[in-house]
């Protein structure tokens, strides 16, 4: 528990349920989740595979919609927004880092880092590349900007993914197993980057099943069978 918890909530999940349907089969991923995250927090969501932790991240990002309950992020009721509104909203509000990096294979590192700026039409066109290059330099890839993803190592690709997530200077950065595909040393480095961003005021929420990495966060939320079973911030 940090002093930041007293700050106003930037993420608010209230009575959230989520059921996935595939044909006649229904899978209940969340069964009534209440979660409040204050601005500036660094939160780790942990739990076993299939517990619902990625679903929570997806709901916060507006990637998925709740079956029941409300999701309010940065003052916006996501469950009431259209896909188009959500896309624009995400461009300004959220940065996401995925386990498998998910870079655009046809774009170079700097182009990948510029992409959110282009999509959001963020600032003058000429400045976008400069901003993206700065972010790449921040993650230690200032000299690799002209490389295609296939020419980069896993750690480098994840750094590009972080640079891309930082592109528009979002107030919230989400990570879905952001170091799950990296070795221990690289994972540590990556967390240093995330901690640095958090230190600058960015709210960081990430999913991990690695207890050691979870311990680096200021707050740990434990999920099991679609329910929050532990929260060090409560």
């Amino acid at each position, binding site marked *: 528990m940090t002093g930041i918890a007293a700050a106003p909530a930037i993420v608010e999940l209230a009575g959230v349920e989520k059921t996935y349907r595939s044909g006649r089969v229904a899978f209940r991923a969340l069964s009534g989740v209440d979660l409040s995250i204050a601005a500036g927090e660094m939160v780790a969501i942990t739990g076993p595979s299939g517990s619902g932790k990625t679903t929570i991240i*997806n709901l916060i990002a507006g*990637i998925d919609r709740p079956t029941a309950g409300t999701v309010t992020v940065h003052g916006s009721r996501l469950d009431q927004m259209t*896909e188009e509104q959500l896309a624009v909203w*995400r461009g300004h509000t959220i940065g996401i880092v995925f386990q498998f990096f*998910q870079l655009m*294979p*046809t774009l170079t590192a700097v182009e990948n880092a510029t992409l959110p700026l*282009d*999509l959001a039409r963020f600032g003058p*066109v000429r400045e976008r590349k400069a901003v993206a290059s700065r972010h790449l330099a921040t993650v230690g890839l200032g000299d690799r900007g002209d490389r295609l993803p296939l020419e980069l190592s896993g750690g480098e690709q994840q750094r590009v993914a972080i640079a891309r997530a930082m592109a528009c200077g979002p107030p919230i950065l989400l990570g879905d197993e952001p170091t799950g595909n990296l070795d221990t040393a690289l994972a540590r480095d990556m967390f240093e980057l995330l901690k640095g961003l958090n230190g600058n005021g960015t709210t960081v929420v990430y999913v991990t099943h690695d207890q050691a990495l979870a311990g680096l966060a200021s707050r740990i939320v434990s999920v099991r069978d679609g329910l929050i079973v532990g929260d060090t911030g409560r």
Partner: protein
Amino acid sequence: MSTLNRKAWGDLTRHRPRTLLAVCTLSIAIASLGFLAVPALLNAAMNRQIAGSHLYDVGIFTSTLDLSPAQLGALGRLPGVAAVSPAVGYATTAASAAGPQDVELAGTALASAPVNTVALFTGQMPGPGEVLADAGNARATGFAIPSGGTIDVRAAGGRLVRLRVSGTGMNLAATPGANGSTTPVFYAQTATVQALRGVRGYNYLGFRLTHDAAAAQSRVVAEVRAYLTAQTGADPITALPAVRAPGQWPGQSGFNQIMALLYIITILAFASALFLISATMNTLVAEQASEIAILKTLGGRRRQIAGITVRTAAMLGAAAAVLGSILGIAIAYLLAGYFAVKLIDVSFGFAISVPVVVASLVLGPALAVAASVPALRRALGQPVAETLARAVTSGYGSGWLDRLVARSGLLAGAGVPGSVRMGVRNALRQKRRSAATIAQVAVAAGLAIAFLALGQSITAVISQTIGKLHFSIGVGVASTRGARPFGSQALAVAATTPGITGAEPVETSSVQYNGQTYVAWGLGAHPLYSYRLSAGHWFTTAHTAADAGTAIPPVVLGPALARAARASVGQILTLSVAAGPTRVRVIGIDTVPTNNGDTVYFPLPVLERLDGGPGTANSIWLTTASTAHTAIDRAATAAANRLAAAGYPVSTTEIYITEAQITAADTAILTIVDILGLVVVAIMLMGLVSTLSMGVIERTREVGILRCVGARARQIRRVFSAEAVVLAVAGWAFGVLLGWLIYQGLLTLLLHDASISLPQEFPPVIPLVTLAGVVVLTVIVIRGPLRRATRIEPGTALRYQ
């Protein structure tokens, strides 16, 4: 069902829209095989018609012969003759609201004639004072009189005789559509036509032979000529005998020309579809690369793993074969029926070409399996670890071209949106599939360009041929039907008609060279025709003098005949004319493609003499004071009336109408070809839709990621639109080259197969119009895949496997 079979089925049903798309694409390719069935179906139908109508093997035009039943019996017993049927033809005019209408009456034994039987379609056979209208009159000539109606026909004496139309029927030998005529035909009892002509006797003899080989036909012609000469004291044959090659039917040459184009389209359609199906199977297999690797780790042998894909492909191919065969049967039936009506005016019953259907059913699965083999071989040859590692990465960036494009700064300018940059580079991701799509667009654009250029050439050739005729009205008598030929009196009557400024006598006839029939024109030294010689010279006044006498008459050859005979100036050729073989000397070679270039020009008195009427021509060309159509119509009617009153029943042809008819006929053929070309375009569009759909399916996760980083629907649309437009424009660029090559091929084909020489017409506007068409069509057809891409929800996309 075994696990392997269940997996094969599952692979097919996993992405239903894509499977459906692949089945549709392959089925179109299979359906295009239906084109191949058209000639067989039409030939079978025509052979039934020929048998039913007892179509002639040899037709002989004579002066009027009052043959007795005994003489007809003797003709029927000549060696090689199976049956003979006499007829009397009468070319005259009928009164109509639009003025005198040329008509032809054929007096025969109608349904009981053993040769050229008239088939009854509606109403009843004509009795005395009645006629049966040819079923093709309405469409081929625009002169339709319903059953029960009447027609006022001008008799030889000049009076109008009212005849009742008893019904409709058809005789293949005379029907206007199949014989390239625009004169309506009516059938009547022999006595009715003889009464109208005012002369007893026949002027046509139709023969069926016991053997229809060319040698047998020549022997029969010689026997008939000898018999009739012996009976009448002179050779009564007035024109080249009409001989029908075995299996040939009226209208067949026009049909063959269209079929030649159709075969090209079939080949292109099939090749285009093969590209597409190959790309589809390639994707299907490539997508399963990781599954193939997993199966290997589980102990699956190459044959077992290949068997799954082969089964999937075979199932897909079988479904496409069934659908394509049904489509192909429908296409063949509709097309054969269309040609039967359009070209020959015969009805066409439902029929199936069994060999083509069997080939279609076999080819479907075979092609699908064959198309999957290259990708399957590649997938099976990949090391397991490498394949599994690649499952989480994209292959883009491993090639030099990818890196070159990424680093060259291409499209990296500030003005190019990131979505466009991605779209353009995406075109390089699946290089084989992109190449296949580009090839398909190239084929479609190339075809469009070639056909548009061909249309330009045809338009140009019309102006080059009709534009060389400097008269407005052609007046003709059908000398073979026994009407009076034009002497100086007729010429004077025509020339002094109000509105007429000049008259030139012309002899028109036909000759044969090497078994081929060519048009013969007898003209003066300064004709109303602008020849353009590539060698030699035109006739001098000495050549065209009435008393000109040369043992070997001079001729000028049209370009097609000159090519066929490999003729040069000074060469002696032997031509067959009505009176028999005659030797001529080539003094010039013309380049104007009049009558498709199949023309032999004679000095007028020479051809008059060869046609058996020295000093009398069978045509007159008239010039008019005004070029206005109404003035020409008025002058033509006045000339026809004055000549008829002077004892010369004539038919008139207005050149502007001929030009319109030729243009309409050419346009009709081009329309048919263009419609069929649409099949190739449809395949091209399917290709684009398929490529883009597969791109959307394959990049579902990417679309999700883009959505996650803030991409709006129109930005997603722009990514895929840019890719599609790049592929389409690249295809068009190759299409311009391909189109030029196809165009050259078509010109060569028409010259080789149909002796039609067309001028080169390839203006830059044609590729530009095609580019606009390609881009517009692309933008339209990609709407579906784009809609799919923008409807993908990010959460679903990220979970997509």
